[in-house]
């Protein structure tokens, strides 16, 4: 199910969220999902490591979250964007910040590709 170069269904720069991804990213997405609750957002801001440990994240997952390596989390970690994007509520990163990182650009570089930069 995971994408390979030989897969005719593969779309460049795209990691279709299928069973393999969802299985791999289960704990990670559960952790992101927990940020829907105000007490967990407060707990993250208080002690991010303790909250990540509470959700049983691996050293690799914790490392990529500390580094804000959003691309690795989506590509290798099984993070779903609708869940991962909630991290912005505790780190201050907007969807555009995350997207610029996916593309290997700065926020400013990414916004320069858009028609109306204020519509966000």
């Amino acid at each position, binding site marked *: 199910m995971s994408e390979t170069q030989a897969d005719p269904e593969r779309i460049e720069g795209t990691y279709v969220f299928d*069973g393999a991804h969802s299985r791999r990213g289960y704990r990670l997405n559960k952790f992101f999902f927990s940020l829907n609750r105000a007490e967990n957002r407060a707990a993250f801001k208080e002690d991010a490591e303790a909250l990540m440990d509470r959700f049983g994240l691996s050293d690799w997952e914790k490392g990529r979250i500390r580094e804000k390596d959003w691309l690795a989390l989506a590509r290798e970690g099984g993070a779903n964007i609708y869940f991962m994007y909630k991290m912005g509520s505790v780190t201050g990163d907007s969807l555009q910040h995350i997207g610029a990182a996916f*593309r290997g650009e700065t926020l400013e570089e*990414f916004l320069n590709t*858009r*028609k109306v930069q204020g*519509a*966000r």
Partner: protein
Amino acid sequence: MGKIIAGIGSSHVPAAGAAFDQGKQEAPEWKPLFDGYRPAMEWLREARIDVAIFIYNDHGSDFFFDKYPTFAMGVAESYAPADEGWGPRPLAPVPGDPEFSWHMAESLIRESEFDMTVCQELSVDHGLLTPLPMLWSHEPRWDIRVVPVAVNVVQHPLPTARRLWKLGQALRLAVESYPRDIRVAVLGTGGLSHQLHGERFGFRNEEWDRRFMDRIVTRPDELVELSHHDYMVQGGAEAVEMIMWLGMRGAMSSEVRLVHENYYAPMLTGMGLLLLEDTANS
């Protein structure tokens, strides 16, 4: 009996909901979007719609991957705005219609063999709440009752475009077998083109969006034939949710009239609005 009066396709971009709450309706970057909804809101008010069936998706707000229904529907008295990570939107809970919803569940599951997950508690996120107050008044109280129909367009395998079309047809049977005289609008939300993850983040395709909006009215059968892969290639991975517009169109008769449309693509997503009148019922 129940009658389907209108069908609506609408994007559900969360940033538009935030802009709405911040009173940015006249801000230059948002005005082309909000102005585009006003004629639809006026038309719907005059059409005296009682119930809006919302074919939408949840975005990690209420449903988690521990149990992820392909099709779920609400039968609740009301639906609270979900906390999506930034606190719930400052909107009152949206009234439901339990009697009609349970009738819908009976009809969908027993007559049409659509095996819905039936929810007595459900919070609703931007998939429903972004378009809702742009189409029906929420002050001093909501001027509409809703039935949320949540579709898995997040975790593949997803239901096919054809399945959404059949869901729409089943919704029409459910509405028309309801003994009370209620006037119903069916909405499909989501899209249009956008990709929110990976190196292809920011992908958009205005030509595809405009063709899609045309075909939804004139040749929906062409859209029903397309695979998820087709939708993702043409519109971006997250644009696969556009299949929910086919649920709306499948609920309409073959006789539809285009009342109003709008399109605005300033940032990440092609934001479309389409209002159709079901002329078989007018």
